[in-house]
């Protein structure tokens, strides 16, 4: 069973540098903004290179898993989500959420499952934004729900959807995981 969802898988096994990056760059053109690609490679140097390339190209490097001799790199294609104006008015800062973690609240992480897998707040529940409408029944309307994503934009959209569906106590966390300094947990190899 897959541990998390990926949208595109690229096989770059057996290829030596520079081909894994050349192929990733090419494949990225067909990946939709915000989607996750898994790049399989056997070149050990590909890890440092793919991370540096992603940072330089503006994509999000999520992490790498090792499976035998194969390295599986996970990247999320850049999107223009940050430029959208936020509308949900009930917000909290990262610090405010950190101070609330021991209370009876729900932390809802609406990033892609692969982003969640490589770095999330230990108590957070994962429901990617794209799945929220179908999975809203997993949440209780009376709960105090803190919604997080990477920068606060997807969580803003998620918060709006929840309010539209009758949730009353929904707080968008700003800026979100990109600046989170508290405890996190991640998938192990």
């Amino acid at each position, binding site marked *: 069973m897959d541990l998390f969802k990926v949208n595109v898988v690229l096989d770059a096994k057996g290829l*030596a*540098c*520079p*081909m894994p*990056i*050349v192929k990733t*760059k090419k494949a990225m053109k067909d990946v939709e903004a915000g989607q996750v690609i898994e790049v399989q490679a056997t070149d*050990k*140097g590909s890890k*440092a*290179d793919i991370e*540096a*390339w992603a940072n*330089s190209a503006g994509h999000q490097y999520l992490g790498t898993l090792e499976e035998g001799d194969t390295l599986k790199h996970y990247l999320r294609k850049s999107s223009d989500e940050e430029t959208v104006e936020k509308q949900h008015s009930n917000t909290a800062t990262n610090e405010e959420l950190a101070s609330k973690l021991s209370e009876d609240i729900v932390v809802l992480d609406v990033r892609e499952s692969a982003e969640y897998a490589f770095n999330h707040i230990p108590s957070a529940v994962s429901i990617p934004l794209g799945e929220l409408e179908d999975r809203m029944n997993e949440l209780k309307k009376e709960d105090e729900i803190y919604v997080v994503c990477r920068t606060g934009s997807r969580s803003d959209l998620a918060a709006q959807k929840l309010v539209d569906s009758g949730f009353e106590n929904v707080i968008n966390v700003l800026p979100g995981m990109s600046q989170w300094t508290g405890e996190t947990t991640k998938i192990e190899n």
Partner: protein
Amino acid sequence: MTVKMMTAHEVTQKVFNKEELFILDVRNEDAFEDWKIEGENFEYFNIPYFELLDGVEEILEKIPSNKEILVVCAKEGSSVMVAEMLSEAGLTVSYLQGGMKAWSEHLEPVKVGDLKDGGEVYQFVRIGKGCLSYMVISNGEAAIIDATRMTDIFIDFATSKEVKITNVFDTHLHADHISGGRKIAEQIGATYWLPPKDAQEVNFEYAALEGGSVVTIGNTAIDIHALYSPGHTIGSTSFVVDEKFLLSGDILFIDSIGRPDLAGKAEDWVGDLRESLYSRYRELSEELVVLPAHFMIIDELNVDGSVAEKLGTLFAKNHGLNIEDESEFRRLVTENLPPQPNAYQEIRETNMGKVTPEEEKQREMEIGPNRCAVR
């Protein structure tokens, strides 16, 4: 225009001859910052290859038209790609065969002197990493000191000289590179010597190298006198060869001295280090030619590419030998130490025989400079 291939040997000659070269290093920025090809008259420009996938137009103006150009990457593939792109843009460029991997593994044999009976001493300069190995040749026999893991080079060199390797030494348990000493000894049937104080955790057979040991190479008595000189490690041992050369291991370098912390005992061994450098070495002839196990900076190379200097000159010029105040000495070698060598714990365990990583892994463990010294 054409793309040419340059070997690590050719680049080494350019370093020795202080020639000019423009190096376009297309590795990651942090890899370049950490470690690069050093040459007195080399110029550098670093841009990762993946920034050039769409073309090289934007860097053309950074590349001089009046200099020889060498494109370098980690293993070769990316440098070939970039070199071809530059060639299509009208430049004549070379790429480094085998990339930094080959650079890290290249050994350049340099003769450092003759022995009384007509024998010779060769230094094997591992130019990319700063490691120095030695071969003492006398009357058909050879001894190797501080061999690197590229063992074929030593064995082939001995064959070309028509000599038989009879004794293989490590001056101490190395933390910066994987020793090839044991492998050579096993392959050739030679004796492998290691100081027992550094060998307490090893799981293989060795001959105990101790202060006062004398090993004769060849039948005309070229003696190798072992001199116990702790400090870098507790077992560190120096050799006096033919009353002429002092192989100082990682205790004394040309422009620096050994660091005492790589086996985790900086505080304990700083006293030993001072004793070795300020007392034991002081008793030796100043005419001895010091042959260390490392160099740190390219300035330490002599014009012929060798790394060697008279002990008397080092007493006069090496800062680490001229710190009168003991507490100041203690501070120098225990505080503000440079970063430790890459994977040094794993390298030590490999040299103890506790782990046997695959070749690719060994290569990766050794990436980067040796960092065995304090200055």
